[in-house]
């Protein structure tokens, strides 16, 4: 029973973080209709900023959230404004070109990180990095639990933002029907820039929260891009609540797979669920949650 409960806890906690990673990609995918294949690399940038803040300024990763999120918002907005939007204006280019552009951006970010920080593994060792507390024999990692609740907080906030604010409504309108949104006076270009910024800030939060428990090197981005992609499809494009459910599903599937099938099949289990969802629930959990 302990094994079962510990696995459940591990899966849920990791799932919360996955949800945060997926949410940003999901938003971008919903509004722009493109897959941001530099998503994990943006997270990597946020992680390096966290690392620098911690190592050179002595700033705790949770405080660093206040730096990484605005910084990545800016970076994301600039990428959208100067690298992706110009591609949209060229009639002869396919939308796929934007996807290719994100791949390129991802590579450039990785190599810049390698140039500055070399390929060395870096990590942030805080007092709570490997501390845990026990509830009835089940161990909870302090950092992962904190990350889980902060992730929930962000999801709640995004949910409110998208439903209740004008800007949020404009984003949803652009996602649902861009032309109609344009006719209603929504500045679609501004919305895309904002969305990319918000998406990047969300993944920055995930990266910063991951930093105390994980480690960092320039090539860390691509496995997380892949995970974000799976979560986005699980959750349904553009759905914040769906992304959290997608993240939890992936986290739980990986944890239970690791315990009861074998940890060597980590990726296989995640991708198997991915295929099953595509086959039987093509629009993801969004179809169940509607948002």
């Amino acid at each position: 029973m302990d094994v079962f409960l510990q696995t459940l806890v591990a899966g849920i906690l990791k799932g919360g973080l996955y949800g945060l990673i997926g949410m940003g990609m999901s938003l971008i995918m919903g509004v722009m209709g493109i897959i941001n294949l530099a998503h994990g690399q943006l997270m990597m940038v946020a992680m390096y900023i966290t690392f620098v803040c911690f190592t050179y300024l002595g700033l705790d990763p949770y405080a660093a959230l206040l730096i990484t999120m605005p910084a990545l918002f800016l970076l994301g907005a600039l990428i959208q404004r100067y690298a992706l939007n110009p591609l949209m204006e060229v009639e002869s280019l396919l939308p796929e070109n934007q996807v290719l552009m994100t791949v390129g951006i991802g590579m450039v970010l990785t190599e810049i990180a390698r140039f500055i920080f070399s390929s060395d593994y870096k990590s942030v060792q805080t007092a709570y990095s490997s501390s845990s507390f026990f509830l009835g024999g089940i161990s909870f990692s302090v950092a992962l639990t904190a990350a889980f609740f902060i992730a929930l907080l962000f999801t709640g906030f995004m949910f409110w933002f998208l439903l209740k604010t004008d800007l949020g409504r404009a984003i949803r309108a652009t996602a649902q029907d861009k032309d109609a949104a344009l006719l209603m006076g929504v500045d679609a270009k501004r919305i895309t820039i904002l969305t990319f910024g918000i998406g990047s800030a969300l993944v920055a939060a995930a990266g910063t929260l991951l930093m105390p428990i994980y480690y960092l090197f320039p090539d860390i981005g691509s496995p997380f891009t892949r995970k974000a992609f799976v979560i986005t499809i699980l959750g349904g494009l553009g759905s914040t609540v769906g992304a959290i459910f997608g993240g939890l599903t992936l986290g739980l599937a990986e944890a239970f797979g690791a315990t009861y099938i074998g940890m060597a099949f980590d990726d296989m289990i995640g991708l198997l669920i991915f295929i099953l969802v595509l086959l039987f629930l093509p629009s993801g959990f969004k179809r169940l949650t509607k948002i």
Partner: protein
Amino acid sequence: MKGMKGTATWFMGCLVLAAWLIAGYPGQAAAADPLKVGVVLPLTGKLAKFGEIEQKSFLIAAEEINAAGGINGRPVQLIIEDTTGKPDVGRSAIEKLISKDQVLVVGGGYSSSVTWASVAVAQQRKVPFLVNTGSADNITEQGWEYIFRLNPPVSEYPQALHSFLKEKAQVKTVAILHENTLFGQSGSKEFMEQCKDFGLEVLMKEGYEAGAVDFKPLLVKVKAQDPDLVYMISYVMDAALLMRQAKELNLNPRLFVGGGAGFTLPEFQANAGEASEFVFSATLWTPSVPYPGAREYYEKFLDKYGTPTEYHGAEAYAAMYVIADALKRAATFTPEGVRAALAETDMMTVFGPVKFISYGKMTQQNKLPTFLVQWSQGKLETVWPKEVATAEPVYPFPRWDKR
């Protein structure tokens, strides 16, 4: 039409010129022409860190050799190709070294899976390959006459552990965790068989995919089995996470032992922090080994690059010297000549004595003793065998909650 013909002529002219420049005009192989040595290493990708350490060590050694007059007056030229840590890229990298650069001999080869893929090319193209890190047993079990290996195979990593278990620590049950590529699979399989010979009961043996965020599902299973000894074959960052999460779960076997690779590196200690304390590891080399030049190499590396080196670097450094030694003795500067000279190698390096012998299923394999080290207050102490020990081993492992 005329314009096109002109372009074609111009183009051909360029080609001829380029070919001439690349090949050097015939009959001019001056005595100072460098001797080309190919090296395949992962310089990007997640294994880049070790590729870099090995690359730097190769470069230090080559610099020293060239400064001391090279190979009978001719300098050694290293051509280093990036394998990115992927077997298919490794294959094309070595193909390129052999066909385009026409190297005499190939060195390097970091991860077992990439090395395994590249040695097959070397054998097929009849160019000698001195493996210095790839440690899966099967690499030297094929009877391939062009493949030599400097480092012990992964099955021999725990040699020192065996004598330690026999004389000092009495354990009965074992759990084996390994990363799931050729290196971990090969090492864990061999270790499991050795456990049987030793009369140890293997309670579980499980692989994991390197780079995982959360090892708790795996560790909680280990905890449920409650083994005396946990043996892990891991790359460095997985090793650090495994130990940190073992601490979080309060997993207390009598011994935590790492099977080489990740557990001996400074990064392991930096990332695992206090969770690294008292962890044992098998290792092939430490700066305190009783071989001439070992300490000097360590200091020189630290001086030059500002970061410490470790056993992978020592392997690369020694490999460069073995290659240079073979080149000096080679009857002809052809792959075949170098191969024959390599087979006759009998020398001392910072990594230990090197002589390629055949034993068991292995051919052209160097045989070396291994060491058991333990982390103690953030420092790596050699604890076994007794003759070279720098500290007494702490055994059994103090419980996490009683520290």
